[in-house]
């Protein structure tokens, strides 16, 4: 077990190291540096100003040297300052992670609850009218452009009906206000992710229903739904747990589109702006954090898999 964990941890480190270099290089390949971007908004800047600022931000050094500087600083515990925000990187990331966790966490729970419920119903009676209907709903959610859904929700619930705020952070500090402001973005995210859970659960239930012990249960006269809830659910949960674990990473990488449309300051928007604004420190640390959490989620998923299914043993990490 511990050898397994050590190996997984080692692999994760390699992935993180390779990725940090990759992202640094790719961002370096983006045209123009931060100073060029500044130039376009400050007509009074001179060439000397630009050269002076490049030196100040260390942009006059070659990319690899900058990467090594950054890496050694990070390893010595200094993630540096965000150039855009003029603050320590974690001071910027902290609130964004919290916001994103609230938003995506809520959507995560809601989508899983609805998705598993629908999946159980559909899987209990495959090829029934109800199954078809649920299938179509599941596919519909994952087949719409997410920004279209978000705008539609705003138009209906905020503009036409006036029930909920169109977006942004809560200003009045009450729990009710907080919930009201979260409602639409959470709904938008749920629409997009409920389909995945439904489909997985449905497939898992169908698979489980083929097992002998289920056949026995049916032969005893239990109806489909009782069988599903009483017997098939545990087995059916295995792939669902895996899927949920895989989604842990998104808690930290955020939901760019939803955050943009609902003006919600989460990780997705933060990372996007950091990349577009060439804020190396911020973009890298945020992306590494998200990747790390995804890897951790994968590991969690694999461990959960083992815990739920005694037939599976841990080996090279190809359990899935």
């Amino acid at each position: 077990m511990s050898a397994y964990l050590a190996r997984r941890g080692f692999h994760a480190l390699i992935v993180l190291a390779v990725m940090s270099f990759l992202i640094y290089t790719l961002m370096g390949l983006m045209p123009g540096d931060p100073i060029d971007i500044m130039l376009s908004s400050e007509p009074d800047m001179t060439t000397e100003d630009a050269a002076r600022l490049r030196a100040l931000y260390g942009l006059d050094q070659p990319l690899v040297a900058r990467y090594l500087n950054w890496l050694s600083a990070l390893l010595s515990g200094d993630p540096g300052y965000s150039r855009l925000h003029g603050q320590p990187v974690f001071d910027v990331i902290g609130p964004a992670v919290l916001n994103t966790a609230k938003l995506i966490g809520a959507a995560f729970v809601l989508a899983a609850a609805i998705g598993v419920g629908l999946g159980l119903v559909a899987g209990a009676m495959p090829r029934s009218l109800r199954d078809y209907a649920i299938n179509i709903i599941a596919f519909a959610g994952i087949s719409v452009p997410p920004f279209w859904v978000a705008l539609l929700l705003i138009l209906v619930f905020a503009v036409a009906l006036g029930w909920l705020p169109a977006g942004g952070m809560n200003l009045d500090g009450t729990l009710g206000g907080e919930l009201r402001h979260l409602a639409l973005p959470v709904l938008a995210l749920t629409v997009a992710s409920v389909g995945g859970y439904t489909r997985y659960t449905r497939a898992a239930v169908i698979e489980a229903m083929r097992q002998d012990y289920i056949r026995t249960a049916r032969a005893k006269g239990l109806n489909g739904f009782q069988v599903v809830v009483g017997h098939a659910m545990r087995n059916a949960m295995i792939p669902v747990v895996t899927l949920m674990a895989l989604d842990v990473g998104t808690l930290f990488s955020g939901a760019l589109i939803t955050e943009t449309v609902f003006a919600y300051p989460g990780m997705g928007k933060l990372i996007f702006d950091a990349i577009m604004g060439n804020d190396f420190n911020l973009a890298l640390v945020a992306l590494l954090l998200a990747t790390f959490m995804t890897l951790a989620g994968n590991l969690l998923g694999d461990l959960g898999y083992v815990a739920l299914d005694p037939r599976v043993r841990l080996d090279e990490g190809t359990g899935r």
Partner: protein
Amino acid sequence: MTGLAAAVPERRVLVRLADHTPALLGGLILFVTAIACFSAPLVEGLLGIDADAVNLFNRFQPPGDGHPLGTDEIGRDVLVRLLQGGQVSLLVGLSAAFVAALIGTLVGVCAGYFGGWLDSLLMRVTDGVIALPLLPLLIVLAAIDLEKLGIPAEIAGSEQMSLYRIVFIVSIAGWTTVARIVRGTTLSLKQRTFVRAAVSLGAGPGHIILRHLLPNLASPIIVATTLSVGNIILLESVLSFLGLGIQPPVPSWGNLLTNAQELIWQAPMLAVYPGLAIFVTVISFNLLGDGLQDALDPRSTA
């Protein structure tokens, strides 16, 4: 998931697919959509209009009067633009899915067939790519400067470049699913008698992969690819929303929709058409893929 597809004879696949109403419907819709989109020049000729011709004095016309769906914000025919956008979106979706499948198959077969350190390496790379936060990476890739990579300026600067760029970006990020499926299937095929027999008869790896493995890998690959086309069309619309997708004047459903959402109060239908087109097409691809999966999986309860 990695069903032993070879066990299902072709004729039965068709029968099973025909039984699968949603899949059939999806396939039919896709067929009609594709025909319609690629007959855009024909429609242009029939209507006697030029979709690129701007007419500032004929903006936001309602349907009718030679424009079946009206005109857009600079007086172009909405129907023809929509069909042309469909061509681009479908092309991007299909070619990116194809390239991704190609890469995925190559990686998967190599990993599965040769095994050992190559398998370990390739699968670690695959895991790594899966762990990457996709959207931010796509953003970086969409913004990098091709000339810094040594691509000549005349290619990097052509009107179609954004199209190739998207295909490239999506396929280098999207091959992992196919790779995993193919590897799994290859591993199990390797144990089957016909492969073992071929090996014992002295066939080289190239021969075995081409003649024995690939034909049997076809169905899972087709299923995965079909399912991914829809996702890619969606992804293109998201990139367009971020300003990093297909660039005008080349129309795509994604950029038509993105442009139209700013005009939602003036001409809501301009947003409804491409939005619906994306929705219907993507859901059709998903239903078709789902149906294919069921039909090709011998264990499924048809």
